[in-house]
């Protein structure tokens, strides 16, 4: 999905940085390395809160690479840096909460044949063909959060449920989305990604027109009426 030639967008830089951090933490935690376990414990406490509220976590999240000027990307502006750091903070703390006392890696990359986006993860908490209203409502509420602090709080509630159900999530993808979220119009973009992810979950691979099975009953296809 990433094109090699195009310059790396700030969103991609955020997502990659998150992926690197989380992979290291996840490896360390599953290996029971005390440093990683301790880091996760501290990060967990920040879950659902804004970065500024917890200065002691700043040292745990190395945002240095964001400040480096790379060959394939332009330097980030001050505003981009702030949003990138906030997104990283929220994503990493949510991951830490998600991973707590789980013996397998709760962060898994989203792939076309194995959807791990937020919408898909929420959907996997429901029975096939049914919508669990309270769970569904949490995703809807996350989608309409007015600001990042509220969004972080609502995502925290979802992650708690995911941990309980042992359902994985692509936290790096989420980090990128959290970055995009903070820009004008970004919330809409992210919401649509979550929505598509939610609805992509139940598609059957062999049936190319899987969507139409559902749409039959809801669409009123016009037969274009003639003027007669």
């Amino acid at each position, binding site marked *: 999905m990433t094109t090699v030639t195009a310059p790396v967008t700030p969103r991609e830089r955020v997502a990659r940085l998150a992926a690197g951090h989380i992979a290291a933490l996840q490896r360390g935690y599953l290996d029971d390395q005390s440093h990683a376990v301790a880091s996760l414990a501290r990060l967990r406490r920040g879950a659902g809160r804004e970065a500024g509220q917890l200065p002691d976590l700043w040292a745990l999240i190395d945002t240095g690479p964001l400040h480096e000027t790379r060959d394939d990307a332009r330097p980030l502006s001050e505003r981009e840096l702030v949003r990138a750091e906030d997104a990283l903070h929220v994503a990493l703390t949510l991951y830490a909460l998600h991973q707590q006392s789980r013996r397998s890696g709760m962060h898994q990359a989203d792939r076309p044949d194995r959807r791990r986006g937020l919408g898909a993860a929420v959907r996997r908490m429901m029975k096939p063909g049914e919508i669990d209203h309270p769970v569904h409502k949490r995703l809807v509420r996350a989608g*309409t959060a007015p600001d990042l602090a509220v969004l972080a709080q609502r995502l925290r509630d979802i992650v708690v449920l995911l941990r309980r159900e042992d359902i994985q999530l692509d936290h790096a993808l989420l980090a990128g989305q959290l970055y995009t979220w903070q820009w004008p119009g970004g919330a809409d973009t992210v919401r649509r990604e979550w*929505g598509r992810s939610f609805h992509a979950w139940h598609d059957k691979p062999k049936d190319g027109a*899987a*969507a139409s099975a559902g749409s039959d009953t809801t669409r009123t296809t016009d037969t274009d009426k*003639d003027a007669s």
Partner: protein
Amino acid sequence: MPETDQNGNSDGVLSFDLTTRPWIPVLRRDGTQGELSLREVFEQAHDLRRIVGDLPTQEFALVRLLLAVAHEALDGPQDTDAWSDLWADENCFAPVGAYLDQHRGRFDLLSADAPFFQTAGLRTAKDEVFSLNRIVADVPNGEPFFTARMPTVERLTFAEAARWVVHAHAYDTSGIKTGVEGDERAKGGKVYPLGVGWAGNLGGVFIESHTLRETLLLNLVAADTPNLEIDEADAPVWRREPSGPGGAERAPTGVRDLYTWQTRRLRLHFDEMGVHGVVLGYGDPLTARDRQHREPMTAWRRSKPQEKKLRKTPVYLPREHDPERSAWRGLGALVATEAVKAQGSEPADYLRPKILEWVARLVTEGELERGFLVRARIIGARYGTQQSVIDEIVDDHVSMAVVLLHQQDRRYAEQAVAAVGDADLAVNALGDLATNLARAAGTETEGPRSSARDVAYGLLEAPYRTWLAHLADTDDPYAQRTAWQQQVYGIVGRLGDRLMSAAGDAAWQGRIVQLKHGTEWLNSALAGKWFRAALYKGLGRPDSSHMPPDADASPAPETIVKAPA
């Protein structure tokens, strides 16, 4: 004939000879406008772009009048060979001058004995003379504010009056009219409605080309045109007895008769300065039903109600134009052949205009080059309340290469028609999206649906017309069609993105709906997914360059997830 003054002859009697006095408004090839006499129109036809009317319907009526003159003066054409000689001959209209000289007595607008398109001495019992509003169609009845001629038409020049006289026979409204003396149909001084002027029944279609000369020739159907009946004795009104008051339905004899059909009886009141009043009554009414073998300038449709009522099959009525629908969307009815439409023994639902059959024949027989560009010009009036007012006038055109009309090589026409189908499909998908977004937001669905469809058709129109005009540039109509599908995908896809963004929070929140296979969360994301799937299914996946940046998550078959057990 020597003239002593502007509008009279040597006896001081007023005269306005339409064969020599300017009265037909034209647009020249250099872009200037002017007024010409009948004779001049034919002399200069190669240098004129087209007739311009005070209204589009007037142009249609005048073109038909010119065609009647041409059929007469050129005596035919009898067949395509004769037509082809005319097409090749730059001076093909030369005989018109002599012909007009021969009949000029019937082309005097002010003649006391046989005024052009009028009835001498026509009067009502009380000798009333009516306002010219009755024949000037740009003064809507009862709506005097919607015209430049506030509040009434006091006077017309002779030239202008002549145009409205021609127009009145073609497009006059129906309704109760004052009974004229000598009309047996009058009851209590009134004649009850007998229908609109003949052309008012039609969804008018004619072929337009680069010059008026070509336009007139292309619409000059040969006498041997299949399924078009033109009697030997077919004659225009000026070769018939001058009409008296009243009238009766009779069978038309052919195109010359129909192009100059006298649906009204009228008489202008005038003085040296111009025309100041009119007497107007009903003339020869003509029912439009089953005239497909006589009237070439309209498409026809089957009428099930009429078939039921008359207990016969099929019954055809003229296919009128829908003002809400742009011409390109009706292209199918214009270019599809009857053979394609008719399945088995069932009569065709639509018949395309004979005027197009005629041009199709010219292409098929090689008289016209395949890339030759023509415009199907579409003009029609839609009448309102009791047919007593003109509500709307349709004036549109579709440019296309004549190869589209080719009777054997159907590939181009099929792709052109299918391309309209592509547009319809995409617009339907967009309409569904609008409906589903509204449903997700819990709001009323019809408004958003129809406005989304309107916008989409509006945005597709110009690209389609451009595409169609260039369809014959290539040897591969199928490749052109694919390119068109990609264009539609791009245009309508972007509209869909905009709709989804505009739908906002409410549509994102959505609602839980019951579908066949279970419960589903209908929100903007799902509506968008269905939309993309419908576009993909109908139009194929476009080039990646046409894809919006976030479309990678849409449900393409190869990336669909296996549901966990």
